[in-house]
């Protein structure tokens, strides 16, 4: 099935893969937060990150810009949370689309394509 964010198939033009960011507790050395010695201070649970790495694929320059613009249109400030669904239908609710970063250059071969990394976070 197609992935989606807020029911939009933003990344379906090309291959893309889902992964989860670091999970667990956010911790710092105790001395950083006013403690003494070598202990650890627990700050709280890490917010869940869902990371999508993939490639936008288009037939040409203008078509690729259309795909980029569709993604950029979902990068709001402040982010407005929505539901993110992966290729298997796994669902994460209340996810904020934080960043979209293109990796390296646009590849202009048989098709126009650009690799990217998109980060979504469940902001507590």
């Amino acid at each position, binding site marked *: 099935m197609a992935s989606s964010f807020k029911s939009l198939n933003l990344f379906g033009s090309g291959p893309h893969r*889902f992964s989860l960011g670091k999970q667990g507790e956010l911790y710092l050395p105790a001395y950083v937060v006013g403690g003494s010695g070598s202990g650890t201070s627990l700050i709280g649970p890490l917010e869940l990150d869902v990371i999508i790495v993939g490639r936008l694929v288009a037939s040409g320059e203008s078509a690729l810009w259309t795909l980029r613009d569709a993604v950029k249109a979902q990068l709001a400030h402040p982010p407005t949370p929505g539901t993110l669904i992966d290729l298997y239908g796994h669902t994460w609710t209340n996810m904020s689309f934080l960043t979209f970063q293109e990796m390296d250059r646009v590849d202009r071969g048989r098709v126009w394509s650009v690799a990217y990394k998109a980060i979504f976070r469940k902001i507590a």
Partner: protein
Amino acid sequence: MIIFWPRRVTFGAETWDGVVAVSIDRVGVRAVVEWSDYGPHPIFADSPELRTTITVSMEIMRGVVASPRPGQVAMLTVDISPNTSQSQVRRVTAQAVVVRVTHDLTVKKGAVRTIELLAVSSDGAADPITETLIHGMEPK
């Protein structure tokens, strides 16, 4: 593409005599390959950066001093015909840069000069190699 015994080969204003073969190799310099979350096989591949290399092999019948130099750029033309007539002569052309000139010397074969050239595109999108049918070809 490989061409044996072309009718005529020129590089800019020079005519290269004794050419026995011209080969044109197209190689993808960088491959883009992507996988999906569905399984182990790539679902996308492309070759967005190409290198087109032309190799000219020529017999050297006598000692020569003149030689193309790496970095030299000119229009390379290779005329091909299926027989000795003037009909159906095709011309392969490319703006090309000399990248390597080497010689192979053996007692049995004599001297063979190999010139390797890199074909360059006019704008990056156009194929650096063009092939056209030539009419009214003058005798070799």
